[in-house]
């Protein structure tokens, strides 16, 4: 069974229940609304709006990305999956699904955010897009791996953000820094180190994930 077939299976079951579209979209709307309500009519600085952007992204990721493995456990299909595919294939399939989900969610969040927050104006758009793409890949990889860890534990819901936050923290700090630089209109050269950190994080996490997934998956 190929990774692409696994992705199509996940996509088909999501389309059937429309969980991702309904609940996650509502979660994004609710989170942004809560932030808007708590700000009220105050003016917030650009840096603050940039930081809050990544807060919304982080919590939406925590809400939605554990579905890949936890839904298998809940429906009792984990054993079937273990039988029909090798661990690498399974991880690739789930990672691909989470990548699409992360990009879809974050593009919606970015569009909503720039429409609703006046302070969120990005001067160097290409820098922001590079950071956005590399950052999303990193979030997807790390979240998928942690999702596979907590799928085997109890109290999955509360454990997922607890485990993911320290792992995602270098990524988040660098992304917030890069967002601030993009909003200030900094040229590419000054941000090349941060972009290199994002690239390194992605490469390191993907290598570690593929090597370690075997041990998580097999009993």
């Amino acid at each position, binding site marked *: 069974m190929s990774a692409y077939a696994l992705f199509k299976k996940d996509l088909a079951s999501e389309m059937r229940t429309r969980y991702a579209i309904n609940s996650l979209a509502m979660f994004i709307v609710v989170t942004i609304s809560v932030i808007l309500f708590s700000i009220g009519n105050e003016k917030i600085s650009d840096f603050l709006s940039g930081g809050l952007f990544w807060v919304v992204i982080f919590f939406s990721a925590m809400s939605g990305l554990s579905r890949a493995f936890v839904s298998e456990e809940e429906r009792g299909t984990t054993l079937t999956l273990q039988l029909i595919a090798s661990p690498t294939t399974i991880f690739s399939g789930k990672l691909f699904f989470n990548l699409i989900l992360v990009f879809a969610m974050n593009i919606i969040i970015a569009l909503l955010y720039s429409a609703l927050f006046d302070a969120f104006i990005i001067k160097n758009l290409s820098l922001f897009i590079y950071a956005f793409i590399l950052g999303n890949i990193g979030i997807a990889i790390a979240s998928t*791996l*942690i999702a596979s*860890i*907590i799928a*085997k*534990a*109890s*109290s999955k819901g509360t*454990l997922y953000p*607890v*485990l993911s*936050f*320290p*792992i995602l*923290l*270098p990524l988040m*700090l*660098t992304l917030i*820094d890069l967002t601030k630089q993009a909003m200030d209109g900094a040229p590419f050269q000054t941000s090349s*180190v*941060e972009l290199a*950190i994002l690239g*390194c*994080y992605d490469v*390191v*996490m993907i290598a*570690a*994930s593929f090597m*370690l997934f075997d*041990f*998580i998956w097999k*009993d």
Partner: protein
Amino acid sequence: MIWKIVLFLLLAFVSIAGIAFPIVPHPEHWYEFPLIMGLGENAKIIFFHVPTAWITVVAFFMSTVYSIKYLRNKDLVDDIKAHTSAQLGMVFCILATVTGAVWAKFAWGSYWSWDPRQTSIFALLLIYGAMFALRSSVEVEEKRAALSAVYSIIAFVTVPFFIFIMPRIMRGLHPGSADDTNAGTVVNFKMNGNMLLIFFLSLIGFTILYYWMWYVGYKSMLFKEKLNKQYH
């Protein structure tokens, strides 16, 4: 037995030297330290704060090493060794955060300023805490050992980002950050010869202390497991 006495003498000497030796602008005797601009008297924390941070990283590294060993051999003793190392790492991480915060009060005026290095040591605390949370939520021994081994390896992969990369390139207050002109990076010590000696003696003393605590810790946990199994 003899090395325990040597360790005691070493740590006693380091503690006394670190606290009591005076800091003067032009050191003349072997027991005087130079004055580093921007730090002054509170530079003496370097003998105690840096070794605790160092041991945190070492403990984390040893936990990862034993986790890798566990994943290869599936021997639960390796899991116990990794767990003991993680516990010690937690203790030293708390010590490093607290000594750092106390120093920050004297050097920068407030206990916590979200300086990148302060943030990273706090993130290490979160990583260790998350590992203990994970361990307590899995009942089956082999699964618990496998999952915490994997998490320990993943978490250690992010440690170089936290400890070595980000605090050096980001702008902050801690010595060694991007806009620090006085003290320089950690590798470029502007310390005197005898200050360097006391510092390295402190590092060695703390490392031996960590090894001893880890050895006692994992042996006692092994015995506790054996006793539990006998009575159940």
